[in-house]
C-alpha cells in the first residue's frame, strides 16, 4: 500500500461542512454553557437532532471511513469539545454495542437513534470509585435470575450519563462482573435502557473543563434487564479470553481500540482551536513563523509556535494511522494507544503554552482560550490516562503480558 496522506473528496467536503457547523452552531454558545455548567444546551441539541445527525459526510466505510470520523471529531471539537460530547448520539455505548453485540442487538439498540422521536443518548459506564483503568477490579455485579440480569453497584465519570440514563429511548452500557473469582474473564457488558427501575442518577460532576458535558454518577440497585441485553457471550472462560475468542472482556476492550483514535482526534481539535487562535493573534502583533530563518534569528515565540505546530501535526498523523488500520480491519491496539497518549499530552501542553503566550488576555474569560486549556486537559485523562496508554504501549513494544508489566 503506497504511503499517502491524500484525503478523499467526500472527506474534504465533510471537513468544510463540519467546520461551518463549529463556527456557526458551537462557538457562539461555548461561553454560555461553560458558565452554566449543568444547563441543557437546548439550541445545540435540538439543531443536532433535527439537522446535524444526518451527517455532513459519509461514515459508512466509503472514502476515508474511520479517518473521516476522526476529522469530524477534530472539526467539531475545534468548535467546542463539551458540546461535541453532549450530542445526542449512541456515543461510546454505541461503540460497545457495535464491537460486541449481535446484528440483532445492534439493530434493536441503535435504530432509535435514526428514528423520528425526541433526542436520545447512549453512554458507557465503566469507572467505579475503586476501579478506573483497572477494569478487572470492577465491583458492580450482575446476577442471572431467571431470564433477567440483576445489576448492583455504582458507576462514576459516565460521560453523557444524564441523558442516557434518564431520557427514554437511550441506554447505558454497564460493565459488571458475573463472577468476581474469574477476574477479567468475569467482566461482561449489559445494555440498560434509560429509565430502567433500579438505575438512578445520583449526581453530576463539577469539572475543570468540558462543562457542557454531563458526567454522571449512576447507582444500580437491583436493576433488572432482560437476559438478551448482555453483549457477547454469557460464558465465563477462565483461560486467557484473548486466546479463546470470548467477546466479553475482549469485546469490551476492543471498544477502546475504536474510541481512542476518536478521543485523540477530539484532542487534536481542541489543541488546534488554541493554536489557530494564538497563531492569528500573534500574527496581528507581527509574529510570523519563518521556516527559512537561521536559528539565531528565531524568537522564542516563533520557536514555541513551530514546536506546537509540529507536535499537533504528529498527534494528528498518529491518530489517522490508528484510524486507517481500523478501516483495513487490522489490529490497532498499539497505534490507538500511541495516538491517544501523544494527542492527550500534546494538546495539554499546546493549550497551556497558548494561554501563556497571550499573557493576561489568554488568562481572561473574555477569550475562549482559557476554556480550551481547561477542556484540553481531559484528553490526557479519560479513555485511559496518559500513563495507562504508556503502559499499553510499553507492553506491546516489549512483548510483555499485563502480569509481567503492571
Amino acid at each position, binding site marked *: 500500500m503506497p504511503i*499517502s*496522506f491524500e484525503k478523499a473528496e467526500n472527506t474534504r467536503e465533510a471537513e468544510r461542512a463540519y467546520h461551518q457547523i463549529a463556527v456557526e452552531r458551537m462557538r457562539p454558545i461555548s461561553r454560555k454553557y461553560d458558565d452554566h455548567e449543568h444547563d441543557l444546551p437546548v439550541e445545540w441539541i435540538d439543531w443536532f437532532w433535527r439537522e446535524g445527525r444526518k451527517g455532513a459526510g459519509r461514515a459508512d466505510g466509503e472514502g476515508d471511513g474511520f479517518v473521516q470520523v476522526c476529522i469530524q471529531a477534530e472539526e467539531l471539537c475545534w468548535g467546542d469539545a463539551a458540546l461535541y460530547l453532549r450530542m445526542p448520539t449512541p456515543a461510546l455505548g454505541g461503540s460497545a454495542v457495535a464491537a460486541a453485540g449481535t446484528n440483532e442487538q445492534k439493530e434493536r439498540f441503535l435504530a432509535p437513534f435514526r428514528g423520528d422521536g425526541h433526542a436520545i443518548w447512549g453512554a458507557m459506564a465503566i469507572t467505579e470509585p475503586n476501579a478506573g483503568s483497572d477494569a478487572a477490579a470492577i465491583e458492580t455485579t450482575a446476577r442471572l435470575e431467571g431470564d433477567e440480569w440483576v445489576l448492583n453497584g455504582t458507576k462514576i465519570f459516565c460521560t453523557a450519563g444524564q441523558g442516557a440514563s434518564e431520557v427514554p429511548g437511550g441506554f447505558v452500557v454497564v460493565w459488571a462482573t458475573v463472577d468476581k473469582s474469574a477476574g477479567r474473564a468475569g467482566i461482561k457488558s449489559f445494555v440498560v435502557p434509560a429509565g430502567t427501575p433500579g438505575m438512578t442518577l445520583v449526581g453530576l460532576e463539577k469539572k475543570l473543563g468540558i462543562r457542557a458535558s454531563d458526567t454522571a454518577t449512576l447507582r444500580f440497585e437491583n436493576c433488572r434487564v432482560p437476559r438478551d441485553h448482555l453483549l457477547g457471550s454469557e460464558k465465563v472462560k477462565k483461560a486467557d479470553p484473548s486466546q479463546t475468542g470470548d467477546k466479553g472482556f475482549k469485546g469490551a476492550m476492543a471498544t477502546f481500540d475504536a474510541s481512542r483514535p476518536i478521543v485523540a482526534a477530539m484532542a487534536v481539535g481542541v489543541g488546534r482551536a488554541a493554536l489557530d487562535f494564538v497563531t492569528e493573534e500573534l500574527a496581528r502583533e507581527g509574529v510570523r513563523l519563518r521556516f527559512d530563518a537561521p536559528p539565531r534569528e528565531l524568537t522564542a515565540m516563533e520557536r514555541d509556535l513551530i514546536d506546537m505546530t*509540529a507536535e499537533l501535526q*504528529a498527534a494528528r*498523523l498518529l491518530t489517522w494511522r490508528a484510524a486507517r488500520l481500523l478501516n483495513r480491519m487490522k489490529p490497532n491496539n498499539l497505534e490507538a494507544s500511541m495516538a491517544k497518549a*501523544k494527542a492527550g499530552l500534546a494538546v495539554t501542553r499546546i493549550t497551556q503554552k497558548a494561554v501563556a503566550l497571550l499573557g493576561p488576555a489568554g488568562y481572561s474569560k473574555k477569550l475562549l482560550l482559557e476554556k480550551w486549556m481547561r477542556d484540553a486537559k481531559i484528553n490526557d485523562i479519560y479513555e485511559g490516562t496518559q500513563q495507562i496508554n504508556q503502559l499499553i504501549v510499553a507492553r506491546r513494544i*516489549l512483548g510483555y503480558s499485563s502480569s509481567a508489566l503492571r
Partner: protein
Amino acid sequence: MLEQAHELGLVANALPEAFGGGGERSAIAGALIAEELAYGDLAIALAILSPGLLALPVADFGTDAQRKELLPRFATSSFRPGALALTEPHFGSDPFRPRTTARREGGEYVLDGAKCQVPWLDGDDMLLVSATEAGAAQLFLVPRAATGLSAERERNMGLLALPTAELRFAGVRLPASARLGGEAGADLRALLARGRVALAATGVGLARAAFEVARDYAKERQTFGAPIATRQAIAFKLSDMAIEIDGARLLVWEAAWRLDRGESALREATLAYEQVKRIALEVADGAVQVFGGHGYTREYLPELHLRNARGYASFEALALV
C-alpha cells in the same frame, strides 16, 4: 562497503533515465532509504548517500550541458562521492543567506568565503558550493583542485566514519558555466526542503536504532531479580521513545509525500526536521540512560548514537531526497 551499497542503485535509481539513471525519483523512497541506512549507522549512511549531494541538485537545476557532463558518472556501477558545501563556520550560519560571495568579473565568477561540515570523501573532483551572488543565494560547481580553494579535514564529536572538511575560498575563479542552472540558477529553498526531509529521515533511523538497543538491553539487564524493562520508570521511557519516533516518521513521510506531489513543502520539511532534531537527541540520551554506566562506555552503541544525534543542531543538507 560504499561500492557494495552503491551497486544497489540507491542514488542512481533516482537520476533521470536519459543520463543512465533509473528515472524513479521519489522523496518517499528517499526517506525510507535514508531511515534504513541511518538505522545502521548515520555516518556511513551519509557517505553512501553522498553522490546525491552533487547529482540530485544537478538533476534538478542543472543546464542541459551540466547534466550531460556530470550525471552519467553517478549512474555508473562504481561509487563516486558528491559534495555540497552550504554550512559556514561562523556563528549563526544561515543556509538561505550565505556569507560566501560570488562576484561577477568579466566572463568569470570569483568566489570568496568559508564552508564547513562538507562531506569530503575521495573519488570525485567536483563539489557544489552555495554563495550569494547579486543578492541571492546560488550554487556553483567548483573543481576540488581549484586554485584558491583549500580544504582541511575536520575532527567532530560524532559522524566519525564520514570524512568532512572545512573549506576556504580565496578568490577562486570559475568560468561563467559554473553557475548551476545557468541564467535560471538554482532554487535553494527547494534544495533545503529536500535536505531537511532527508536528514529528518536519517534522524528517525538513528533514533530507532538507539531505541531498539535500549529496549533489548532493558529486557536483559536484571535488577532486584527482574529485568529493568518490567519497571515503569524504564518501560514508560521506552514507550515515549516509540511514540515520538512514530510521530516524527509520519511528519517526515508527509513532507516527502508533498515533495512528490510537486509542492515546495519547506514548511512541512522544516517542521519535521525541527521535531526530529529534538527527538533524535532525546531518544539517544534516553538510551544512554537506560544503559546506565554501560551507556557511557564505548563498549555499547548509545554513546555513539548520542554523539551523532547532537549534530543535527547544525547539520543542513548532508543528504538529499
